[in-house]
């Protein structure tokens, strides 16, 4: 560590990242990003999912390697970036889900790996407790150090994690969605603690989807979009609307899909509730209609999608497909009833990456490909695979290529092919354009368009508001487990700013 001797000056730059770029095959995750944090400031970092925040933070923590760019801390350029060098440089990360040794006490967690011993070589518990208590009170944190960590509230755990980082000489602490699970009282407690540390010259990077909190605690805010830094502003120079506008962007080339909604109701969800996930959800889908559902993490959208496909319990309520009751016990029964689901987590639920394109495409229709004695009909299988490789434009050396070796966009198309092969009546798409490049996005939108023209009722769960506006006939917003707002082309009220505000739980008359 560099000892400057002088008191820390507030306007001095602590962290200076310049020209950071990072590509994954087919995707530019970060492009020429500049990001700087001053000493003793709380610096907000906002952007939609996939804007590049986590890639940027990953590089800062040394767990991802930048393709180009430099990182300097207090003017000293770091020549290599490993997790250890970053920790040594005083950078620390406090994740949303805190990692502590839950069954051990607060004191043990603080002194873990360095417990004081008495002259018999045994742990000196008295010293452990006194030492850790003293350390905590220096930070102004009141906690019973003898208490096991599992008894602490989430806010207390977060503060303990911050305290631990400070004991390790952290100068810059990254807080990732620290308030996601907190009540207002706990938020105040946490913010008070964070401000107290800020007074001592500690800097924070504050990542959050809750914009009003960004305004509450941050000094400056940097906005990211599509792998680029859109801008950096002092918090008193802007308001929520400006910030949302920066996050959503404008003037981007947009995909506009023409409506193909019919009249016939295909899929009806009535008063569907599942404890702890969603409540009183009702909506209906017509033949050929495309609707979007958007909400923050924890708003219940993810659970709703998985519940409707039988990956999780669906809960209580009535769901009908073409008038017939629908209760999926498993994905298999969902497929049989005509519902197909594109999972958000392609690697975990979408693809069997070790296996070939041919196998993946035909998994969902194996029952139809079985000839006598359970033998698969090779020619039919080949025909289906080639049909979809052709139709969806899957770029692969051949049907036998392992899907693991395809680019993100082509992997996603393989999952689409698997679903389309079942000829579903209802298609649930969970973040369909995530992790794919721009060209593949357009291809995927075309696939969605084609399927809707064939009469498939499509429900897209996405946080990409602009994409939803281009694709959907209607957009429903979910907040805290309920559908709180509906926007539609018919009502001509699909304004990205309004939708994003509703997603963030902003003011608005709930009309659902």
């Amino acid at each position, binding site marked *: 560590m560099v000892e400057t001797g002088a008191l820390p000056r507030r306007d001095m730059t602590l962290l200076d990242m310049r020209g950071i770029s990072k590509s994954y095959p087919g995707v530019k995750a970060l492009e020429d990003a500049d990001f700087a944090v001053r000493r003793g400031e709380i610096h907000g970092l906002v952007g939609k999912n996939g804007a590049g925040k986590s890639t940027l933070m990953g590089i800062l923590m040394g767990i991802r390697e930048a393709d180009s760019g430099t990182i300097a801390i207090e003017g000293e350029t770091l020549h290599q970036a490993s997790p250890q060098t970053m920790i040594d440089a005083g950078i620390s990360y406090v994740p949303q889900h805190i990692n502590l040794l839950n069954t051990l006490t607060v004191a043990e967690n603080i002194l873990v790996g360095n417990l004081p011993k008495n002259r018999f070589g045994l742990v000196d518990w008295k010293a452990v407790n006194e030492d850790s208590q003293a350390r905590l009170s220096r930070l102004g944190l009141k906690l019973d150090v003898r208490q096991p960590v599992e008894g602490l509230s989430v806010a207390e755990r977060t503060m303990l994690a911050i305290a631990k980082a400070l004991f390790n000489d952290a100068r810059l602490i990254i807080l990732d969605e620290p308030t996601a699970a907190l009540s207002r009282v706990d938020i105040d407690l946490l913010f008070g603690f964070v401000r107290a540390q800020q007074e001592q010259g500690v800097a924070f990077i504050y990542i959050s*989807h809750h914009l009003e909190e960004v305004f509450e605690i941050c000094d400056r805010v940097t906005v990211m979009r599509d792998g680029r830094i859109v801008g950096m502003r002092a918090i008193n120079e802007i308001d929520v609307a400006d910030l949302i506008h920066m996050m959503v962007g404008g003037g981007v080339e947009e995909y506009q899909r023409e409506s193909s909604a019919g009249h016939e109701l295909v899929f009806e969800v009535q008063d569907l509730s599942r404890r702890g996930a969603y409540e009183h959800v009702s909506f209906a889908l017509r033949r050929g209609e495309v609707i979007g559902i958007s909400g923050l993490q924890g708003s219940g959208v993810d659970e709703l999608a998985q519940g409707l496909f039988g990956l999780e319990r669906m809960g209580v309520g009535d769901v009908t497909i073409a008038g017939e009751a629908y209760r999926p016990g498993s994905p298999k029964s969902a497929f049989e009833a005509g519902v197909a689901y594109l999972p958000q987590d392609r690697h975990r639920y979408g693809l069997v990456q070790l296996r070939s394109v041919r196998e993946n495409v035909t*998994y969902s229709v194996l029952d139809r490909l079985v000839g006598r004695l359970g033998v698969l009909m090779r020619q039919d299988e080949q025909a289906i695979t080639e049909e979809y490789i052709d139709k969806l434009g899957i770029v692969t050396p051949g049907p036998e290529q392992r899907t693991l070796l395809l680019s993100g966009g082509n992997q996603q198309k393989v999952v689409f092919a698997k679903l389309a092969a079942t000829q579903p009546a209802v298609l649930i798409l969970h973040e369909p354009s995530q992790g794919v490049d721009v060209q593949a996005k357009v291809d995927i939108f075309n696939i969605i368009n084609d399927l809707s023209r064939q009469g498939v009722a499509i429900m897209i769960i996405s946080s990409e508001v602009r994409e939803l506006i281009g694709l959907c006939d209607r957009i429903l917003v979910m907040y805290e487990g309920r559908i709180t707002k509906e926007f539609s082309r018919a009502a001509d009220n699909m304004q990205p700013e309004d939708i994003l505000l509703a997603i963030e739980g902003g003011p608005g008359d709930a009309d659902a």
Partner: protein
Amino acid sequence: MRTPNRHDLLEFLTRHFIWVVLVFTVVVFGLTIKGYLGLANIANILITGSVLGVMVIGQSLCLMARKLDLSAEGTVSLVAVVAAWLMLPYRETDLAQAGGLGVELDPLIVIPLILALGALIGFVNGFMIMKLNMNFFIVTLAMQLVLRGLALAISEGAIMPGTPAAFNWLGGGRIAGIPVSVIATIGLYLVFGFVMSRMQFGRKVYAVGANEDAARASGFSPARTVILVYTASGFLAALAGWMLLGRLETSVPNLGIGLTLNVVAAAVIGGVSLKGGEGSIIGAFAGVLFLAMVNNALNLMNVDPLWVNAVRGLIILVALIIDAQKTRYAGRAGPSAPTTTVVADADQNAAVS
């Protein structure tokens, strides 16, 4: 379309590595050991390889489903003891030799009975693992102990010599001079090779083994598939027990002990990955041939028995190293293979967009 590159070559070699090794082994042993490629010795290799071979099929299915069956060798012990016990006439235990229960059942009844017993043991394994959410390693290890213990208890630790000829046909008989066990084993490889590559069941096993979550989301039932895999493994282990007892004509209570490591090794040498979802039955067959040849060569070369285990262990380790490299290579080649990261969930999946 793209032209094959270095990666394709590497992948091809790692996939078919065993065949290269096999040819090399034949040439080296053939040139250095006198009589190695003589008919008598080849028959010897194949006969000793057939029990191993039958067990490797079952273990390969388990490995492909990303599981392991440690109980198979216990099944071998138990069915051998049960078969002898049910077939042999009663006699007082004498000099650690015993007779049977005295019911003297016909081999034609006993054979289906022990095969069903093996299948049942496998089913119970699979049921506990998938329906009761128990760890496959511990379940099958405990099952091995149970089966071995039962075999000892029933036989009272004594050998039971003199199984009937009809029963011994599979293990010791010959058709036109070719050992029945060899024919049967090759037949089983053809059947299971076909099942795994061309039938729905095989497709599901690979899918479940490679990614259980995605398999479920594709409409498969992992529980059903895995239970069937274990049932098949138990059945094949019982068949191997029948074959082995038929060859020895004497039930030994600890028959089959220590087979598991050889069985797993043969499968892994043959390219069946310990990480599931990969490998082929025909590859496993090559693994069996290789291991049987090496064991035979160690015998013929009069390698000090004290060294034999070290050599075997080394071969197994080398196979495991290759397996680990193979999966590591596959992971690296993937453009978006999942990486471990500590970044919070919120953005984790979106990190590359």
